[in-house]
């Protein structure tokens, strides 16, 4: 670790219809936000498998942003309510792993809310920056817990960057 400002890595999940388009709009409108977030496009926020989020943490992300259409506006009726339920469950689950629940955040953004989404990203980056790096595998190891959730994660753990970080 050096003295430079900590730059968190945040993985963001977007749905194809609203929040991805909000991100597009933020771009078209040239609204600026920090480059710490990397987005994955899904068809709907209902596609979010809790494992994706845990994988992201295990793989080195410091925060996960889940985004979707506003309640009542999901293009697949109301699958975003399932995302809401899963997020709440996830926040409770990660807390038990010793991860601050604030590292999982849910934001509704309509296709018109580019500025709003950009602001939400900026806010989250600041918040995670304040929380500091996650270093989950090391934390888990310190607590004597196994951080191996699935074989896929095990392969992540031996990746060089994390081994380096662990030293």
């Amino acid at each position, binding site marked *: 670790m050096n003295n430079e400002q900590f730059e968190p890595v945040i993985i963001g999940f977007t749905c194809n219809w609203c929040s991805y388009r909000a991100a597009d709009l933020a771009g078209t409108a040239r609204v*600026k936000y920090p480059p710490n977030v990397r987005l994955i496009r899904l068809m709907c926020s209902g596609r*979010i498998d809790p494992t994706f989020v845990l994988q992201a943490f295990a793989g080195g992300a410091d925060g996960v942003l889940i985004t979707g259409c506003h309640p009542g506006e999901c293009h697949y009726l109301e699958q975003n309510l399932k995302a809401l339920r899963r997020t709440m469950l996830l926040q409770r689950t990660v807390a038990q792993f010793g991860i601050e629940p604030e590292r999982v955040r849910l934001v509704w953004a309509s296709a018109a809310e580019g500025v709003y989404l950009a602001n939400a990203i900026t806010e989250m980056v600041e918040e995670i920056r304040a929380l500091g790096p996650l270093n989950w595998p090391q934390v888990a190891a310190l607590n004597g817990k196994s951080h191996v959730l699935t074989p896929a994660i095990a392969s992540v753990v031996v990746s060089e960057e994390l081994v380096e970080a662990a030293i």
Partner: protein
Amino acid sequence: MPQERIGVYVCHCGSNIAGTVDVEELTAWAGEALRHRGVVVARDYKFMCSSLGQDLIAKDIKEDALTRVVVAACSPHLHEATFRKACADAGMNPYLCELVSIREQVSWVHTDKAAATAKAKAVISGGVERVIHHAPLEPMSVPINPATLVVGGGIAGIQAAMEIADSGFHVYLVEREPSIGGHMAQFDKTFPTLDCAACILTPKMVSIGSHPHITLLTYSEVEQVDGYVGNFNVTVRKKASYVNSDLCTGCSVCEEKCPKSVIDPVFEAGLGYRKAIYRSFPQAVPKFPVIDADNCIYFDTGKCKACEIHCEAGAIDFEQEDQILELNVGNIILATGYDLFDARRETQYGYGRLANVFTSLEFERLTNAAGPTNGNIVLRDGETTPKSVGIIHCVGSRDRKFNNYCSVICCMQSLKFAHLVKERTGAEVFNFYIDMRTAYKEYDEFYQRVLSEGVHFIRGRVAEVTDVSNTPEEEDKLVIQIEDTRIGRQRRIPVDMVILSAALEPRHDSDEVAHQFGISCSVNGWFIEKHPKLDPVATMTEGIYIAGCAQGPKDIPSTVTQGAAAAARVLGRIQQKEMALEPIRAEVTEALCSGCRICNNLCPYTAIVFDEAKEVSVINAALCQGCGTCVAACPSNAISGTQFSNEQVMAQLHGLLMLNIMEPVVS
């Protein structure tokens, strides 16, 4: 997994990307760092989407035997189709091409060149990892049944049905009430031209009733919808009317002879009576009456049968039962219209408590020559002509307590009422408005005409309508209390009659209807269109279209426009005969499915059914719209989605986190 041969193409987008991202470095990096992941060629170009840029990709696909393509450029919503097509033209399956956005998500939103370039690397790495797991897909082709279902026989449904039937294709028109016509049939005059509603509507209704390509199912409702675009199976319940339509001549003697009168809450808006055997109105289409069994004396006591005795045609049939009809159609248009806001909810205006407060629909019946007063504008006593009338705009609209939205038609409808009162009674007329919204062809001209007729306009929101008088001239009057915002003073205006221009609201059952047809409602309850500007009559569900006030408040011209537009969309589909569906679908692997059925109720399109024999869940590919909810929920990992499988998402995640940079893809 055999090593793929991947091409990476970085677009400069002029300076749009190249201005903030070091595209040369990015390209060189992709070619080097991702070589062990299968990247065999990485190129950058000024405008990748131009034909020269596309040629570049096509040439590599052919000469370098590429098996995958990643384009780093603008949003997939802009150019995914372009690059897929370029790949397909060069002989590669289009779904093996992935477009990642380094413009909307990188160069346009970030400023620091080094940081932006670093992020662009992660984005490309994610795309490369993901594309490795893509599989070649073929669009599914489904045949289109040329028959169409139209639900709702208001002016929107009438227009849509007519356009399709006139083109020679069959239409089933399902209407809940005994007659088609909808709200328009209740009106006397229509703004802004004041043509008589019946004169322009009834000929259309008659054409519907006699059209060789239209099956008119009135007094009917849709019970169930199965299937998918091109091939819907619809179950319709045709309620027993107790009148045999093969024999009935529509003479209406039965109506005359029926001894039981009931208040008609639908067509007469509660202002008039109908019989227990009735047609909604004399020009009803179809012309056959129905017996309202709940109010019929015979059904209640077993005695009466006056209608049967007097029917010369012998058409009355007390034994008739509901009929269940199965229809096969390729497309569906929903034109179920609106309900009027229940003005009793705005308690301070006294509707339902103060006799001479009327709703807008009641007033329509009052002015209608065929209405309960033969068109005489009189007070609730049925005799007295009002000397002064107050018309209150925006009742239940633009009001946070009820509906935030503007009901669009109320200003014009209130102006129409003001004109009619003036013309027919000479009474003093006061319009109470918040803003005057008369934006459409000839609408403001109409406003000016009403202004010149001496109608008073008072700006503000009415606080109260009361029968408590403060002064002798307020005695026996309804007093309208308002802050006149143009002079900044409280005023009390005594009138004989008050008309409430009530909001248009979504049908009370719009949620259930939306659910039945697999579409959604906005927060306010209106059916949601596919795109508010560019696709206003399609929905997110293929093969389901919406038209008229079911989509949102609007006047008759816009309603008719949407009816015709929905018909045009359906006709386009019918002409295609078949249609290709995006192959973004979920699939159950039988061997992994434990039969827990967790997924069965999750699917918003009821695409998942349980195969009792095999004890596994099965997804109907044509119904599935690819949301992926079931994939995420299946505890056995038995469901996978083309284009969004666990492997694809995980791989992209790992790519974005640059975890696999040092690891070659193992075979």
